[in-house]
């Protein structure tokens, strides 16, 4: 066995009365890729934040290269060669890519003035290594979620760390970007860097890691060699029982058309898109990142202007003037970026769940009926299996996957007639993912038209009745979910 670069012993951590880590031991060998997995809220990110000097443990010890350390801030951890790519993106939108990547470590002259040319050159190199050709002076605010994720990774790479923690790095990446990331992980590993990799995507975990450690409810269940185990065993370790990754049965019958889109066009992003959504069906949008799926959803929702095209809802032509207008017409949109539009982070779960449907709870005088709100919120907390099963914590303090569930609950509560969900299971664990799928199916069965945008092909194919394949702003095929293979979809997505 190679020497451990990182040795964690007996780490415990509580937030208030809530104990989230119990006596955790973990060893990371030099040059290994070590996956850390577990359900949403199991404590993975918290453990990594302790290693990264962001949280302090209540008890326990950490050794780096045999030397015992106690980090009081992120810099101390960075100084020991530990760098973290956070699950929640942490870039400054008004600054450039380069400024974000080299924040606090800009190349400077002896007076401390930034050498811009060198800064941009080095950033460009890093981004090219990640397969992105982009002007390093571009503001982060202008970037898509996927590219932002790559900027975060570039930032961690730029630190030349010995231990690199990647907390769900792939949840916002497309297949191609994920491949690049795998390649980089392999390179780093060959160079002797140890990598801790957190992910809910088990195939990816098996593809990339040497060993796998499983956390459940804040306890370390065990560490196994990837080659000695399989998905079933891992899932069993994660949830304490086995889960069949089964998709709910498809729609037996669909109703009349709820939403139809004709000739939607804008510049070279959307060209002449047409499709129909029927009552009770789940329609999937498949395609590469940037193929126009999110743009189409936004255009329907009224978020962006279009050059041409008509949108018909229940046989009436509509053009939404605002998000509120769309919601009032029963069209809801769960966005790709839960932080930006979706959630009020500093408010509690209850407030978030009812935030788009306050009208439902108002008396004739417009006063809110709090008992109704409480009951409804509690119902949805159970319904989406939020952890902890409580409507009072601040959304800010929920784990990433549970924030995603809270966001779904919010839109379910709004009683939509058409629900568009963009990457609905991003960062959600296997068990909860199955739950979300069955919620979406139940919703469809109750007569709602559902559109699912997802970069995960198995999800699209398993869940949807029909799949519209997007390619450079067009729909190149509408396929039946049943019987279609991933290869079929990829053919139309890239032809």
């Amino acid at each position, binding site marked *: 066995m190679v020497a451990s670069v990182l040795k964690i012993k007996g780490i415990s951590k509580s937030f208030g009365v809530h104990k989230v880590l119990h006596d955790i031991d973990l060893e990371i060998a030099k040059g290994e890729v070590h996956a850390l997995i577990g359900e949403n809220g199991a404590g993975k990110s918290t453990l990594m934040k302790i290693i990264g000097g*962001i949280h302090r443990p209540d008890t326990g010890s950490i050794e780096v290269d045999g030397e015992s350390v106690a980090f009081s801030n992120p810099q101390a951890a960075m100084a020991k060669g530990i760098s973290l790519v956070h699950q929640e993106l942490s*870039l*400054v939108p*008004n*600054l450039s890519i380069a400024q974000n990547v080299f924040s*606090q470590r800009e190349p*400077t002259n002896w007076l401390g003035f*930034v050498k811009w040319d060198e800064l941009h050159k080095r950033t460009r190199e890093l981004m090219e290594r990640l397969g992105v050709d982009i002007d390093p002076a571009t503001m982060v605010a202008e970037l898509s979620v996927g590219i932002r994720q790559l900027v975060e990774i570039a930032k961690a790479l730029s630190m030349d760390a010995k231990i690199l923690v990647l907390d769900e790095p792939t949840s916002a990446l497309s297949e191609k970007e994920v491949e690049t990331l795998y390649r980089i992980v392999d390179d780093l590993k060959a160079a002797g860097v140890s990598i801790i990799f957190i992910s809910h995507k088990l195939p990816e975990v098996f593809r990339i890691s040497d060993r796998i450690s499983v956390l459940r409810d804040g306890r370390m269940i065990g560490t196994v060699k990837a080659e000695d185990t399989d998905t079933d065993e891992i899932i069993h370790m994660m949830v304490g029982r086995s889960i069949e990754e089964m998709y709910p049965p498809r729609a037996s019958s669909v109703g009349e058309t709820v939403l139809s889109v004709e000739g939607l066009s804008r510049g070279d992003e959307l060209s002449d898109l047409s499709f129909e959504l029927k009552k009770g069906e789940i329609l999937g949008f498949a395609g590469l990142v940037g193929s126009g799926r999110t743009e189409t959803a936004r255009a329907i929702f009224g978020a*962006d202007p279009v050059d041409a095209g008509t949108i018909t809802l229940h046989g009436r032509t509509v053009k939404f003037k*605002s998000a509120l207008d769309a919601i009032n017409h029963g069209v809801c949109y769960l966005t790709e970026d839960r932080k930006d539009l979706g959630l009020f982070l500093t408010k509690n779960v209850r407030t978030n769940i009812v935030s788009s449907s306050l009208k439902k709870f108002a008396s004739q005088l417009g006063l809110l009926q709090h008992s109704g709100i409480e009951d409804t919120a509690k119902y949805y907390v159970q319904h989406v299996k939020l952890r902890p099963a409580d409507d009072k914590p601040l959304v800010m303090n929920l784990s990433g996957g549970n924030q995603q569930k809270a966001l779904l609950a919010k839109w379910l509560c709004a009683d939509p007639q058409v629900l568009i969900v963009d990457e609905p299971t991003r960062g959600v664990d296997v068990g909860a993912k199955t739950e979300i799928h069955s919620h979406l199916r139940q919703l469809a069965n109750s007569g709602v038209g559902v559109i699912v945008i997802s970069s995960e092909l198995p999800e699209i194919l398993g869940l949807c009745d029909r799949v519209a394949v997007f390619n450079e702003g067009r729909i190149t095929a509408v396929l039946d979910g049943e019987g279609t293979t991933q290869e079929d979809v990829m053919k139309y997505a890239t032809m």
Partner: protein
Amino acid sequence: MRSLGTVLKKLTKKGNIGLIASVALLTVVMSLAYPNFLTLFNIEITAMGFIQEALMALGMTLVIISGGIDLSVAAVLPFTAIIVGLLLKTSLGVWPSIAIALGVAVLIGFINALMINKLRVFPFIATLATATMLRGVALVITEGATISGFPTAFYEIGHGRVYGIPVPVIIFLVLAVLFALLLKNHSYFQQVYFVGGNAKAAQLSGIKVNRLRYVIYGISAFMAGLAGIITASQYVSASTGFGLNSDMRVITSVIIGGASLSGGKGSIGGTIWGVIFLAIISNAFVQSGAPTYWQDVVYGGMLLAAVFLEEYLRARGRKAKMKSWREFLTSG
């Protein structure tokens, strides 16, 4: 249409386009209406009339970019003037007196930062409290009287000239260049943008936010102190009445200059244009003989107009797609 759009976009990327155009327009109108507007004499009057605000605006730019606000500057100004006035009456000498007075100003800035850091008071409240208390203390010290009778060496600061340029203007120019360079290019001062742009991310990337706050509020108070010393020298006296309402003019210049009260945005260049703009308006009142009571009404109106114009141009210039979710939601 498309080319106009891209031109607008390019221009708005540089920022302050609306502001610079307004300054140019105002200058043209004023020089047509009042032929002596563009004379050196009048330019100097305009500059000197706004030199305190200009100095304080440099410090305030840092504060506002960092996501804070400093309402204490208008009180630090007379307070420092009074301290230096009292010290000048002792046998300390001019320079030591100035140094001590500036030291006191910086200390007040530190107290602001301390309250924000340790007591977790909002900058608005912390600096408002400081301002109120300082005004009170200044009245207690002076019993409302004006302090006067300073040595000639001190008189020179407000009235001297180098190559014909008034010393305060030179001080401002040197500091403005220094501030602009530091804020734009110095790695330490880049942190100000990080803290204002995303305080949590700043902390994660290892910025010592609390320490930086001492520096920022210290600098802001230092600039207010400097303005106080210059005022005392100009008037050859020190009184609690100095700097009244200057805080609002300072903040207005910074905001007109493109900074945002939510932090992360702003520049020294923009602030200087903002200061010039307000200074010209103030001079317009002098020139036209209009009742100066109206001045603040106009400033307020200009603040609204400037913010509106920038926002409008940005929306026009930006690709429709770039509209953020938040903007979209709040438009609904």
